[in-house]
């Protein structure tokens, strides 16, 4: 299945901004993080289709996952 992965801020360093990737059914957010060598601490905020999820969230075909390091502002 195809998943869109979007990375932000420091997570883009030596990786990419946005990419469509193939994963097998049952893939979790944690699998994606491991695959990209993003540590638990680095992936502070994770959205799937614009909603906050935890790392054990199971991805579906066509999902978009957005991963942020700890950030703030305002």
């Amino acid at each position, binding site marked *: 299945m195809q998943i869109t992965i979007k990375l*932000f*801020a420091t997570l883009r360093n030596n990786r990419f901004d946005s990419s469509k990737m193939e994963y097998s059914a049952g893939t979790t957010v944690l699998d994606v993080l491991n695959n990209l060598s993003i540590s638990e601490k680095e992936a502070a*905020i994770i*959205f799937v289709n614009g909603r906050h999820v935890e790392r054990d969230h199971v991805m579906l075909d066509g999902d978009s996952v957005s991963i942020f390091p*700890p*950030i703030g*502002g*305002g």
Partner: protein
Amino acid sequence: MDKILRIDMGSVGGPKAAAKELGEYAGFGGRAMTSAIISKEVPPLCHPLGAENKLVIAPGMLSGTVAAMSGRLSVGCKSPLTGGIKEANSGGQAAQVLARLGFAAIVLEGKPATDDLYKIVINKDGIKISIDNSLKMLPNYDLVEKMKAEFGDKISCISIGPAGEMKMNVASIACTDMELRPTRHAGRGGVGAVMGSKGVKVIVLDDSGMTMRAPKDPEKFRDANKRFVDGLKQHPVTGQALPAYGTNVLTNILNEAGGYPTYNFKQGNFTGASKISGETQAETETKRGGVPTHGCHRGCVIRCSGIYNDKDGHFLSKQPEYETVWAHGGNCGIDDLDSIAMLDFLDDNYGIDTIEMGATIAVAMDAGIAKFGDAKAAIDLVKEVGKGSHLGRILGGGAAMTGKAFGVERVPVVKGQAMPAYDPRAVKGIGVTYATSTMGADHTAGYAVATNILKVGGFVDPLTSEGQIELSRNLQIATAAVDSTGMCLFIAFAVLDQADTFQALIDLINGFYGGQLTGDGVVELGKKVLSMERDFNTRAGFTAQQDRLPRYFSTEAFAPHNVKFDVKDEDLDKVFNW
């Protein structure tokens, strides 16, 4: 900081200054000081631009000391925009310098009988107030250049631009930064109009010959400051993300969360978000020889500000903040950073609140005055405000006034003040703050975005109504206290997550004042400030009906999550029950 400088601008024979004892205001600083004076001394039913209103300018409790991050200035008055009490907060150099000059507050009172424009100079030798009509209608940058030529480059300025002189609701009060540029603003609520009504164009501060304020317990204070700085450096938000990308790092995350109000609060995603994001902004600044990591005042260790150069490498404006990039950018459908930086410069120069101005232009675009996405038209509209043309005067009245003038139904304001860069339907905690804050729609009053979106201080789901009342209440209390210390609100990212950094803040206050303040004492301070403000607003005529969002936020669903603001009215009325 043991005196209050009271200047009666309406005194017969010209303005009279008198340094008075602190009296009942002893120990107060920042927002606690401004709100205490306004709530006690200003008749709540007075006209905001009349002689009975006062403009209070107060450094925080720790301003003027070596404590890191302590350079925030509070400006208070009855607001011409909201009709209620106002505290607008600014960075820059002024708070530190004013505190070192020995003043816990400057209070501008009364109103001059003539339309002369005054310049107030405060240094180690005293206070000099003089008429200087050559400053009339000078924009802030030109004004500061003139002050530099007259008084040298060791000064700091607190000033208004043409918008303040024209007494517009969007008028801000500018404070100069470390480079002596008028880039930091007490923006909200039309505080610049009140300064204009007092006939004061600029307050020039020079602390040459003065010393740092000395703590009662130097050792405890020094130790606390070290732990405080370590805590800020160690937290990933204050130590890494804010320095690297500035506040505009929020554009992408609010957009991804579907809470980024676009086209005058019509939808929560903006296709041009990436082009105006903090990541793109920092990269652009670096490429053009600007500065992405820069403090707005001496003693800042977070350094979230920056310098934005144009294509040719020349200074265009300071790094526009997230709220500005949103207000003038996404909310108007504009995705060009150079145009946004130009709008930021124009706002700073005319002395205009960027949030109110951007929100107003979006309302004007909804009315068909210009097309969404037309950056040139937006720039022209701000220039109309600076000129004070008839159209400019309407826009300078803010979003609510512009909505009425042009018959626009959907105007995102609370208590007459425009909402900032988070839609209250998709970030419900901030919706509670917008609705109930004593200030009108103000994100800084209780920044629930931290916990709703950024997972700082825990997590409360932004899309449901559960837990939002308590979240907003606790943040509003904490914020009122932090705003009184003179500390930058961004310390909250570290303080909310790290108990030892919160303790270091308390130890800083105790080390300086020799007191026994506890965490509970901080909470009590926050509640006290909010109670004074609520009391003023009640006496000014505000009821529970003013603690509501405009109706359409409860009836019209917001894409992409198709959510409405569904926190119950009776729950909103419980925010201040303690």
